[in-house]
């Protein structure tokens, strides 16, 4: 494995290795919550924040607790529990200290626990043997990339809301086709950087 500059990973995670367009992670909420720009923006911010924090927590837990104890196989359980616990904690803290932010992001927080992108990023960073800085750059980039994708889709969906789409494709079908076209466009970035 070649040592990659965290900055390169950051850019790659946004454009060439976008969570949605090349890894298909977080699709469920991506399709379900992309009807309006403000809501999707809120969800995107919440996802980015949770991603950045949980990847750091999971990195520390994995390398400082699980690996020394030879308990790597427990990582699925530990990761999902730490993500759920973090989201719960965040919800309580926000409610107590930043009520405005809580009302803006609050409804999305429970959704985030089951967002595959969060767990996916934690698993990717283990599989690809990222260092601490690389993991952090990767998770922030992945969150921004995810936000970019969902906000762009929401913008397009608002415009095609009134168009006459074949009955069978209305709603999620057309959203998938739109996503396919967006993924095609994002393939144009693939020349910039490449990470595996």
């Amino acid at each position, binding site marked *: 494995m070649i040592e990659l500059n965290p900055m390169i990973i950051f850019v790659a995670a946004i454009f060439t290795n976008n969570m949605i367009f090349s890894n*298909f992670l977080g699709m*469920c909420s991506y399709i379900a919550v992309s009807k309006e720009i403000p809501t999707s923006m809120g969800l995107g911010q919440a996802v980015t924040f949770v991603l950045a924090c949980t990847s750091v927590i999971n990195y520390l837990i994995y390398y400082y607790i699980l690996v020394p104890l030879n308990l790597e196989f427990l990582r699925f359980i530990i990761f999902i529990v730490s993500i759920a616990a973090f989201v719960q904690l965040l919800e309580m803290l926000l409610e107590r200290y930043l009520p405005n932010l809580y009302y803006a992001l609050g409804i999305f927080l429970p959704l985030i626990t089951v967002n*595959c992108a969060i767990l*996916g990023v934690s*698993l990717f960073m283990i599989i690809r043997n990222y260092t601490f800085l690389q993991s952090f750059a990767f998770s922030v980039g992945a969150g921004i990339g995810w936000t970019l994708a969902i906000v762009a889709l929401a913008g397009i969906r608002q415009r095609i809301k009134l168009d006459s789409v074949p009955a069978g494709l209305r709603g999620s*079908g*057309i959203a998938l086709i739109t996503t396919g076209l967006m993924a095609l466009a994002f393939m144009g970035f693939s020349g910039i950087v490449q990470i595996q």
Partner: protein
Amino acid sequence: MAKYSPTKIMINGIWEENPVLVQLIGICSTLAVTNNCMNSLIMGLGLTFVTGLSSFTISLIRKFTPKHVRMMVQVLIIAVFVIIVDIYLRAFMPELSKALGPYVGLIITNCIIMGRAEAYAQNNPPIPALIDGVANGIGYTIVLLIIAVVRELLAFGSLFGVKLLGDWWTPWTIAIMPPSAFFLLATLIWVGYNIKNKKSEVAK
């Protein structure tokens, strides 16, 4: 529910309420592993195993689980079965396990399993819950395989790694790229919708 018919549950899970085509859940992994038939088959089988057994277990302990911690309990049960699948794959099919990468672990967050647990296993006896989970898994596997067959055939001219089309076949590189998965899934949803609506029109 006092009475249940296994065939009805089966048909419901596989076709009437197919998790991917109708409910549109669990699509994250649907798309990611379909660039090759073998991967999709293994992924489908893994998911069927996890969904069936976790539905069964959740249904078994449904009377002792306090309502407010049930989500956590469900996630832990699912995670245990996913770990079993992961260890099995790593021991017996190391290459496949490598190709599937994080997606085996992502079975945990696959909405199908949680969805079935919440919607069915929570209020039904263990055996129907098992059948329901398996049926949903099979419905998912079938969709996965259809997409994978089209993609692999177009991209490599082969199925399950066996070359079917001769050298005259020009590979469609696009079919192996992510966009084609989105287009194919949309097409499948469309086709499924049309078949269903035709049926209900005839029934009227």
